[in-house]
Structures are given as structure tokens and as C-alpha cells.
């Protein structure tokens, strides 16, 4: 397998994540699509580390997973708090910054 296959696969996964962020209104699904984009990048980094024969990129993938886990913990806490206040996870309701 050459690197191009992995490039296109990760790119397609990333584009699907972008589409999900743009087309869904449920805040949890938007959050899941961000996780999908992070994973696409992880996959590409592992492929490049394999191609270069260098293990630093795999350590970086490990740290990305660490940061993603912390981010999910805080982000879901925010979503739960928001749900308690407005009883919805619709991101179109949270547009007060616009006005």
C-alpha cells in the first residue's frame, strides 16, 4: 500500500466530519463529528510514521488521544449543563452571541 491510499482515506473521513459539523443541529452529533476528524488525522499520522520509519508521530497520536479524552470530558459537561438550562441540545437555540 502506498501512502496515497491512506491520504485519500483520511481526507474522505475528514471531509465527512466537516459535513457532519455543518449539517447537524444536535450538539452531541457535532461533537462526535469532531472526534471523527481527530481520528482521520490520527490515521494519517500513523501512516506517515510507518512510511518514514519514525516512531515520534505515534507518540503524538497518543497525545492527541489524551487531549481528545480531556476535551470530551469537559465538552460533555458543558452540553449537560446547557441541557439542564434550556432543555435542548439544538445548537440553533444557542445563538445569543449573534445578537
Amino acid at each position, binding site marked *: *500500500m*502506498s*501512502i*496515497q*491510499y491512506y*491520504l*485519500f*482515506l483520511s*481526507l*474522505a*473521513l475528514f*471531509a*465527512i466530519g*466537516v*459535513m457532519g459539523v*455543518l*449539517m*447537524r*443541529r*444536535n450538539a*452531541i*452529533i457535532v*461533537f*462526535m*463529528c469532531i*472526534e*471523527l476528524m481527530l*481520528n482521520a488525522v*490520527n*490515521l494519517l499520522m*500513523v*501512516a506517515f*510514521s*510507518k*512510511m*518514514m*520509519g*519514525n*516512531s*515520534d508521530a*505515534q*507518540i503524538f*497520536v*497518543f*497525545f492527541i*488521544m*489524551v487531549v*481528545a*479524552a*480531556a476535551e470530551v*470530558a*469537559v465538552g*460533555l*459537561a458543558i*452540553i*449537560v*449543563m446547557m*441541557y439542564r438550562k434550556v432543555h435542548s*441540545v*439544538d445548537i440553533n437555540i444557542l445563538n445569543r452571541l449573534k445578537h
Partner: protein
Amino acid sequence: MSLHEILFYFLSLMALGCALGVILSRNPVKSVLFLIATFFAISGHYVLMNAQFLAIVNIIVYAGAIMVLFLFVIMLMNLNADAEPQKSRLVQFAAVLSGGALFLVIIAALKTAGIHTEGNKIDGSGEIGLIHNLGQVLFREYVLPFEVSSVLFLSAMIGAMVIGKKEEAKSEA
């Protein structure tokens, strides 16, 4: 077509199909299950590249911990397909269009970038992904980021608890 290629195409199809399922399914619980399947496919890719440590960590951290958290939150909020807010057709069309445009632009950029592929073939050989080698690198060169990430986890834990506290308890403090 070797076994490696067959597995690659199978896992790629599975990852892309399940990723589409995440953004297309109406029911949030189904979205979570599709995302777990996507993560398993990506773990399969890691195994194909002989990055066994990351494959296991991906399953334990993402499929095991993060997605269970998502599932718990969705079930606590009692979300289902009927209550699911939908964007208008026009916005959905624009979203797909802009996502596809991003895909095309990056493909065009990669085509002219001329990636040099004299590096190793990506196959199941090599030992850089094994836990022995990664542990050596992690604890020799990346010891400081490793310790900092533990502080990050601690602050994220405290932050999640502070944010998630009940409102009346917060006004007392």
C-alpha cells in the same frame, strides 16, 4: 490482490460507510454505534500497519471510554429520532457542497504537491509500533509532555465536575 490489500479495502469501506452512517442516521444512539464501528475499523487499520499499541489504546480509550460517555449522556437526555432537530434542506445541501469542495481542493493541492514516496511501503512489517519501542521513546524523549498531560487530565476532571455541579450548589459556594 494480496490479503493485505483486501483487508485494507474492506476496512476503508467499513470506515467510510460507518462515518456516513454517523452523519446520516436520525437516531443519536445509532450515530454513536456507527461511530464505535468506525473506530474499530480505524483500529483495524492500525493493526494492518503493525501499530499494535495504538490499536489497543484506540479501542480502550475511544470505543471503550469516550463513546460510553457519549452513550450515557444521550441516554440521560432521552434523545430519540422524533426529538431530533433537523436543518433545512438548503443548509444541508450547502453543508455537503462545502464539505465536498474542501475534499476536492485538498485533493487538487495534493496532486500538485508531488509527494515523494521513496519511503517505506506501508505494510505489516517493522517494529516501531510495538509497545516496547514506543515506551522507550515516550519515557526517554517525551517524558515532560507525558507528565504535563497528567496535569491536563487532572484539570479536565476538576473542570468537568465544577461545570456539571447543580446550580444551587454553585451559588452557595
